[in-house]
């Protein structure tokens, strides 16, 4: 057993507002500069929709992630048919059209326009060329565009739905969307790292954050192609690729990452996970239908004396083990099993998990009159507007069982709390629903509290980073205290 600690995450999609505050928190701090304008380390997508970059989930187009071939894991982007020669031209690399051409406006014209016959207006200008631009795409182009024939209908997750089901999604009876915020998943089996010819990408041993060395990177962009989530971006100004750093300077000082901090829907959770690094490859090779469960099995019980002993042997600090015990992520993912990984079939073993969203009850239309079919106070999962199959394609490698389980438990908790707070639901019935959802009363209370009443400290349990110990390997921490910050900042240099 090689016990490692990973900072992991849960996004509760049922609570997501789709506000993009997270995206801007990140943009303000990290990607608001030349060459990075188009990067959105954190973005929020409307589902069904095609996302950013467009159709990123479609690996027949982008060839990201891993595949199993002859019992071996191989990068799709450098598999048999793609050789090292692709290093100079990778046809599956997203282009500017797949992202968008960043733009601003000629705002100064409003101040400088000479008096004329008509009102001046600031025209859009490309931030790449500085020339007037006709805006045809943006990083959030299909925002809230539920039921659009152009975008929503092309969502790759709709692939296995019947034409009838797909049509329904854009009619009143079934019209629906939800939000899907995304950052780098800081995977256990990161294809971006594996793909880098320069060895510039690595996973930090102490917390599992995947980083891209801004010195070593030579801009080959193999990582961009290999990441199936398209969360590595090429900075055209510095000639280096960049990606989400999980705000490690904030984590190292005990602060939640900016996108987590700023999540005004309070949907985000972050905490330590102990996992067995020895089993990664084995798990990543399992058949699709076993992947969710196998991935979960990598996560170790932080209370298990054997795990604790192994963790200590591996050099984990007691305070880190304690943090893992308090981790909200552990509860959502491992104990309650209501948070699921996105597109586990890409086999990178993402460490960001999603609680799948509930949605309104379906309706039916009779002439001009719309009616809802719900008989109960809270409708059944199969009557929800989002087809279970769609969610299963996102969060269960197509397997509906896990998604159904997660939704059913959420519903049962709601029934139970209804019985407690109003009383128009019999407690006996509520408890039966809990049992059927594999949930005890204590668990229901815990789920409710962490979902509804959670404080900042409940949501983000950041393990101490013990920077003094890290620095000690390099210099005396006292000397660091005395000298920190002295020196000259240098801009990143293209190449090495």
């Amino acid at each position, binding site marked *: 057993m090689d016990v490692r600690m990973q900072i992991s995450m849960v996004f509760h999609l049922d609570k997501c507002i789709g506000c993009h505050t997270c995206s801007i928190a990140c943009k303000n701090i990290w990607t608001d500069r030349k060459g990075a304008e188009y990067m959105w380390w954190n973005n929020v997508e409307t589902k069904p929709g095609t996302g950013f970059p467009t159709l990123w989930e479609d690996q027949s187009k982008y060839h990201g992630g891993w595949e199993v071939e002859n019992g071996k894991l191989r990068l799709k982007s450098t598999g048999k048919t793609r050789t090292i020669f692709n290093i100079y031209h990778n046809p599956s690399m997203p282009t500017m059209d797949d992202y968008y051409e960043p733009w601003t406006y000629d705002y100064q014209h409003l101040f400088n326009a000479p008096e004329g016959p008509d009102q001046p207006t600031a025209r859009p200008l490309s931030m790449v060329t500085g020339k007037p631009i006709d805006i045809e795409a943006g990083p959030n182009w299909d925002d809230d565009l539920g039921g659009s024939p152009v975008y929503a209908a092309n969502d790759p997750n709709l692939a296995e739905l019947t034409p009838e089901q797909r049509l329904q999604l854009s009619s009143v009876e079934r019209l629906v969307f939800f939000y899907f915020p995304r950052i780098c998943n800081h995977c256990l089996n990161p294809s971006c790292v594996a793909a880098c010819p320069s060895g510039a990408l690595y996973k930090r041993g102490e917390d599992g954050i995947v980083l891209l060395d801004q010195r070593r990177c030579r801009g080959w962009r193999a990582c961009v192609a290999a990441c199936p989530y398209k969360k590595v971006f090429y900075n055209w100004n510095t000639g280096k690729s960049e990606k989400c750093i999980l705000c*490690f300077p904030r984590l190292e000082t005990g602060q939640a990452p900016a996108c987590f*901090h700023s999540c005004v829907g309070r949907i985000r959770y972050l905490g330590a996970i102990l996992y067995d690094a020895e089993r990664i490859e084995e798990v990543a090779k399992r058949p699709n239908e076993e992947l969710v469960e196998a991935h979960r099995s990598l996560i170790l019980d932080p209370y298990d004396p054997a795990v604790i002993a192994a963790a200590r042997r591996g050099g984990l600090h007691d305070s880190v083990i304690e943090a893992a015990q308090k981790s909200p992520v552990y509860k959502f993912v491992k104990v309650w099993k209501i948070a699921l990984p996105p597109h586990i079939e890409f086999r990178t073993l993402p460490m960001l998990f999603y609680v799948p969203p509930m949605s309104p009850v379906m309706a039916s239309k009779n002439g001009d009159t*719309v009616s809802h079919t719900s008989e109960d106070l809270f409708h059944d999962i199969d009557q929800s507007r989002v087809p279970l199959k769609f969610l299963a394609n996102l969060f269960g490698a197509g397997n509906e069982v896990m998604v159904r389980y997660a939704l059913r438990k959420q519903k049962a*908790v709601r029934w139970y709390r209804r019985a407690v707070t109003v009383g128009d639901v019999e407690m006996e019935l509520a408890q039966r629903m809990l049992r059927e959802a594999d949930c005890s009363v204590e668990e229901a209370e815990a789920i409710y509290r962490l979902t509804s009443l959670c404080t900042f400290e409940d949501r983000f349990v950041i393990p101490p980073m013990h920077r003094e110990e890290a620095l000690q390997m390099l210099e005396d921490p006292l000397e660091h205290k005395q000298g920190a910050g002295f020196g000259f900042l240098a801009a990143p240099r293209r190449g090495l």
Partner: protein
Amino acid sequence: MKPNGSLSWIKDESDPKLRGWEEFYRNRWQHDKIVRSTHGVNCTGSCSWQIYVKDGIVTWEMQALDYPSLQAGLPPYEPRGCQRGISFSWYLYSPLRVKYPYARGALLDLWKKARAEHSDPVAAWKSLVENPEARTRWQRARGKGGFRRVAWDEALELVAASCIYTIQKHGPDRIAGFSPIPAMSMISYASGARLLQLMGGVSLSFYDWYCDLPPASPETWGEQTDVHESADWYNAKLLAVVGSNLNMTRTPDCHFAAEARHNGSKMWVFAPDFSQVSKYADEWVSINAGQDGAWWMAVNHVLLKEFHHEKKVPYFLDYAKKYTDAPYLVELREVEGVFQPGQLLRAKRLEKYQEVENGDWKFLMWDEAEGRPKMPMGSSGFRWGSEPGKWNLILKDGVDSSDIRPQLTFLDNHDGIIQVRLDDFAEGKTLRRGVPVKQLETACGERLTVTTVYDLLMAQYGVSRGLEGDYPAGYDDEARTFTPAWAEKYTGIGRDVLIRFAREWGHTAELTQGKCLIIIGAGVNHWYHNNLMYRAGIHALMFCGCVGVNGGGLAHYVGQEKLAPMESWAAIAFARDWMPAVRLQNAPSWHYVHTDQWRYERDFTDYHTVPVRQVRDSLAHGHTMDLQARAVRSGWLPFYPQFNRNPLEVVKDAEAAGATDPEAVVGYAVDQIKSGNLKFSVEDPDAAENWPRVWFIWRGNALMASAKGHEYFLKHYLGTHTNALAEDMARDAAKEVKWHEQAPQAKMDLVVDLNFRMDTSALYSDIVLPAATWYEKADLNSTDMHSFIHPLSAAVPPCWESKSDWQIFRSIARKFSELAAKHLPGPVRDLVAVPLAHDTPAEIAQPDLKDWRRGEIAAIPGVTMPGLKVVTRDYKNLYNQFISFGPAVRTTGLGAHGTHYDIADFYDEALRDRPTVAWEGKEYPSLFEDEQVCDTILRFASVTNGELAYRSYQGIETKVGLPLVQLAEKGRSVRTSYKELQAKPLRLLNSPMWSGLIENGRAYSPFTYNTELLVPWRTLTGRQHFYLDHPVYIQFGEHLPTYKPKPLPTEYADLRFTREEGRSIMLNYLTPHGKWHIHSTYGDNQRMTTLSRGVEPFWINERDAAEIGVVDNDWVEIYNDHGVVVTRAAVSARIPRGISIQYHSPERTYSVPVSPLRGYRRAGGHNSLTRTRLKPNLMVGGYGQFTFHFNYWGPTGCNRDTHILVRKLPELRW
């Protein structure tokens, strides 16, 4: 290439040299300073933010997390702040920032020339403004570029000179200012308002103008708006979200709704489109746009039938008796042989009560124990009477103190059943329904037929209870109002859904004692008949005891604000510390009249359905202007300018005629008005002497985002190009105002805008002054979304040449006083006309509808006509007054909403321990610095000074006669300073100015003060009103809750002169609040434009789009009589057919091409397609809760009923 084996990528710290590069990102994160501030206009989120400063530059902002926690069991407030707020730092150093003062070049050239010719700036301004050619020169250039940088001094001199000239030539009431939502940066709002009120200028309202005021709130509760802090949503067990898109508009609060669901609350969302909040719904009710009223009317039908009549839920019936007007007696009047509901029966009509004080304003219930009418306490007659201790909700008789057991219905105890005539406006017919009645005899022997409000409600809602008449046969009766089947025709929602909803509502309220919450907003409130829709929803709450409980009630959120420290703020903002009377103008009336929008319509009955049968002299017909004029002369609404003469001159004339004291001056003015020598300006608004002349705009986008009928603003205020093509229609329709064949254009001499960004208003103004942003100044911010008060702080000093609003208006004041020393040296006397005011004895001024002009009643200022007050102004000391907290408040004390407390000791203390200013031998607490103003507000307000809260409760105790001071005991020693707020958000204290009780972390829910401590609502009866018995309401058929059809596009006159061009489709044009802006702010910044589509797109249904050959992202041209918009289409099935959405509010300043349809001129913004239409019955006054208060009562600037044509743009040109 590395092998694909596991773990090869894990790099431990044991190889630290390889990880040294990580400082690349650490360096970026490191910063120098964090300062607390927030965002200061329009958005009511009031989020506490940490502003990060690095190298002396603001780099980014993050939310603060240190809100005091509420009681256990409620989710915390952290974090608060949305995508818009977090993008604000972009503005500070952006190319859109106004860094220096600017002037319109055409004006500047003329000014420099005039100044060269005239050493006196006032003479220079006179030479320009009285030269028509010169005046037209800069007016025509408005909005067309040609800005020039100008020195601060030069700009200030020009502005001050224009004010002096205007005061001398026309009168101070020709100088107006607009700034919205004071609560969000209250010192900044106060700066301009204070200057204007010291001058005698006019402050324009915003809340009614934005159509965010829900008139149903004052109608029902006598309260502008009082709503739940968002944490209280969590206490609700049934959430009905109606026309309110929480994700979009209540972004930082939305989680409370989401979290309530996981606590077993059920959520229903009502929206015609699959709006963003619909994703949270258990049931999304895709109701037809603007038909929410029909839904709630039918819900009430079910509630009354099942829970009241059949089940008789004790909690519901007790609540109705105790807290509503349901048991009050209404007189039924026989007109042409048919009975119809009249006014509430007045106590003085009966022998037993004929001698009581204010007997017109005390009302009666039937006591079921003694079987006779009794007169409960708590009505307006008690509030404004001389007997203390009787203004309360205790059910005892006001004369003999006997107990009252109110009888709700005469169903089982009546003197007969009478067929009462009711209106069915949907079908345009009248109905007769049986109502049980009692017969009474008046003191003078007249026979009276009375029933209860409750019995009338049963009849109106169509619950037959076995009575004869046009009652529906059952829920499936489609033909009769207001059954579930009837509603289905309008809402498009199945009756089964409605019945299920109503039953869930009733059951939930019964089991939880009222924890049903309606969260409602602009999606309903912006329709012409919004008051009726709201009232219907409110009734469902009142029927089920949901108002005045935590987790229950009406949570109205649109433009709502709560300026918590109201008493001291209002004193400073409106210069009440110096001036005894103020000029506060309801903006809807002002703009409707002065932008001449009234000229573009005929009778309001063209689109507003009123009862077919009308009494003689009914006001329910004719042109809206006629009621507007009537409302002004009867003192119902303010209007400025007041008269066709300079009010300073009126006083001089009075003095010349021998009037020495103020009473004599007023008497002289009344005689002049009566004789017609002195005319109300509103009666001839197009005459040059009645125009507004100088307009200050700050903190707002008065010429675009809020300008309903924007193109008419351009035409009649500014005199620049307009894309409107509507023609005059009011020639013979408006009878009470003088008609000019040619409407004047370009009424405004000077428009001054304070701004940090070049928005549309700035672009069209003459002078643009650089304002500090919200991260560059000290200010205060509060809201009703939560119960904390926040500071704005200077993270960096005002950038470039910008100054805080307080500093700018202070500078104008200084320059003004310098010029006044020469031009207006001595004290001058001004005659100020003010309307009858809410929370004053004027609430009982006009028991019936009598017009002094027609000789029906004497002309008595402050009773039957506007109040007239003589105010002395000291213009050369105006600057000194501006920077001094004046002595008037020391003598008179402070108060708001009818409260009062003394502050003399605190005033004297401030003289001892706070900075002061001294002039002309006297010393005053200083208001020189922004921060000093903040501290003065905090020190003298009841929500931040516990001793003053205590005193304020003492004052109300005397009136009410019940113990209240205990509410302030705990916080009595609390004092607050600006510096403390910078350190940590402070939760407000209980105060009688507000109606929610919040001690011990309890969430604010409105009216808990009333229900739990039996303090009356500020209404006629002191109870919540189902029945609105004002004679004009009876004439308009809105005394009872009802349904009126939406105005039809043809009659509403949006498309009377427009020809359909090419393949076009007509759609209802909706402008709800959007995701990427708060009004127009943020929408133009690079973050928000990137996350949207670079324009404010036009959302259209895919089949509607297909009909005109439009695909997603095509450019489209949207047009009607008022103007044109060119933008791109967002095509989605999310939008139902027949409606379209352009989210409020685009700017004309970026990404707007020209319009081929309107001569290739620059296309407009959303308000290019709207026009102001006022609902006349909302103009009444001097009658209980129907009494004017600024931002509180009056007609609203509704805009939802607008229709447009849209086509594919044939040619894109810039």
